């Protein structure tokens, strides 16, 4: 174990060693717990460590494996869980003051499935208050810090999860994504972040009020695409506890990995949607990434989504009334236990007419049909994940960044500008991954999204893995 370097370690690397009993899950877990104790005070990735449970789970894994009862690639693998996903007997705050002392008496289905696969849960990760934002500046639990530059945000709302993965404080993490909350921090922290198809993964056990119903997904943050594929196979699938979960069979997602992508067609959405606010450093990294896809033999072509500019309205019209449905009780009983900004947003949400909500759901279907039509000509669609690398905490507090000699506001009437590029894939429910596609001149990671038709996560993994291996950005780790 002494020779094992946790920096950049992946599940795919460690799994065969655990299986062959060359690495002890107990020792591995202890190493991660030590590293968390050392680095978490500066990074604030974890809100709580579940040390005793983790040691017990690791010891059990070790015992089972030594007896020849190996459960599979997640057996003995240390994970973290975002703090809006219910964990039995462990505080689940959703980054809020209101739920500061809530201890669920049940596990979310995804947690149950991870435990069944033999995973070890190290703790709960920090997040934006109620998952209603994407900078993870949390007034109650402190700000999670970007491990590439601790003066910068990690993104969010699954900020702590991305920090934990990027800083090698776990091997993977589960997060939630209703507006980009997995992909956004993955992009800013240089990890892989997957939002599967809506319904692919059960959202039973997600804290009500942290994502709504029609655009909310549970997702995965990992070091590599292959790790992500391994995890998805274990957490996907119908769940009777979640009526919106899909009854589609769960394939072996690692199977498409390594299949050549030559000849596949890549769509770029025409028009200004993904140019709005786009900084030069992200534009250059994205262009280079497209060049790499071409080198791999993929063909790039422009596609049209006629109603793409309505996406911010669709997102707001869907999530805000849904949030209000969940928050009504607390708005009536504990309004001042929300941060002021969130309270004002929720109150304004009470004034959205029902006709707006229903019309938005009808326009969403139209938008999905437009994406369906585009996917008749291309296998995947790619786009930058964010318009900028990680802003500083100071940028977020003052509300804008300065780039290319311009001021870009981080919020406007359409909502949170940091989620502009990710929300098209929330309102359409399409499986979408963010992979690192380069670094800014100051050494900050930049992300690219790859999206495919519903339930085609395998295609997403195939293309993302091919790019990841060719570009090799995954080899870089923050210096801590």
């Amino acid at each position, binding site marked *: 174990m002494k020779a094992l370097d946790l920096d950049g370690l992946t599940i795919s690397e460690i799994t065969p060693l655990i299986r062959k009993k060359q690495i002890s899950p107990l020792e591995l877990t202890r190493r991660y717990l030590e590293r968390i104790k050392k680095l978490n005070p500066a990074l604030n990735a974890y809100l709580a460590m579940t040390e005793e449970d983790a040691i017990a789970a690791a010891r059990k894994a070790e015992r089972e494996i030594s007896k020849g009862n190996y459960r599979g690639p997640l057996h003995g693998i240390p994970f973290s869980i975002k703090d809006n996903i219910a964990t039995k007997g462990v505080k689940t705050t959703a980054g809020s003051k209101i739920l500061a002392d809530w201890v669920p008496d049940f596990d979310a289905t995804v947690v149950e499935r991870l435990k069944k696969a033999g995973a070890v849960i190290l703790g709960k990760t920090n997040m934006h208050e109620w998952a209603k934002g994407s900078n993870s500046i949390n007034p109650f639990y402190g700000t999670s810090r970007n491990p590439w530059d601790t003066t910068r945000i990690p993104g969010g709302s699954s900020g702590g999860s991305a920090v934990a993965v990027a800083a090698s404080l776990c091997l993977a993490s589960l997060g939630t994504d209703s507006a980009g909350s997995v992909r956004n921090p993955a992009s800013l922290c240089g990890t892989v972040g997957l939002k599967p198809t*809506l319904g692919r993964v059960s959202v039973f056990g997600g804290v009500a009020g942290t994502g709504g119903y029609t655009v909310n997904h549970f997702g995965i943050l990992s070091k590599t695409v292959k790790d992500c594929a391994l995890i998805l196979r274990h957490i996907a699938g119908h769940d009777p506890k979640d009526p919106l979960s899909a009854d589609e069979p769960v394939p072996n997602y690692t199977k498409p990995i390594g299949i050549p992508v030559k000849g596949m067609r890549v769509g770029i959405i025409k028009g200004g949607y993904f140019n709005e606010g786009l900084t030069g450093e992200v534009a250059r990294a994205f262009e280079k990434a497209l060049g790499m896809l071409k080198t791999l033999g993929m063909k790039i072509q422009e596609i049209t989504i006629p*109603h793409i*500019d309505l996406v911010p309205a669709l997102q707001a019209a869907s999530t805000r009334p849904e949030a209000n449905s969940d928050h009504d009780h607390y708005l009536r009983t504990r309004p001042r236990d929300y941060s002021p900004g969130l309270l*004002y947003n929720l109150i*304004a949400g009470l*004034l959205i007419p029902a006709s707006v909500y229903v*019309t938005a759901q009808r326009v969403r*279907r139209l938008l999905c049909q437009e994406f369906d039509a585009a996917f008749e000509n291309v*296998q995947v669609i790619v786009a930058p994940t964010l318009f900028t690398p990680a802003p500083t905490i100071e940028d977020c507090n003052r509300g804008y960044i300065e780039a290319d000699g311009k001021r870009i506001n981080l919020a406007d*009437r359409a909502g949170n500008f940091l989620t502009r590029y990710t929300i098209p894939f929330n309102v359409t429910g399409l499986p979408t991954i963010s992979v690192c596609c380069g670094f800014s001149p100051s050494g900050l990671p930049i992300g690219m999204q790859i999206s495919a038709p519903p339930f085609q996560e395998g295609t997403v993994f195939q293309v993302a893995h091919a790019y990841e291996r060719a570009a090799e950005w995954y080899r870089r780790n923050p210096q801590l």
Partner: protein
Amino acid sequence: MKDAVRRLNVEYRFNLSDQEIDLVAKQAEEAALLFEPLFEVDVTGITPLTKIDKRVKIAKKGKK
């Protein structure tokens, strides 16, 4: 919109200051403007989206 916020303030007992009522009303007005274009879309015969289905038409590799 300010009157609507004031009514909510009473109903929910938020105890908002005048400045806070202004802020919330401004947000609600901006949201209303954001939603206006949704009503310009022809959604005749289109039912609300409630679940994502597996679609059948998917591009084949190399096929335009």
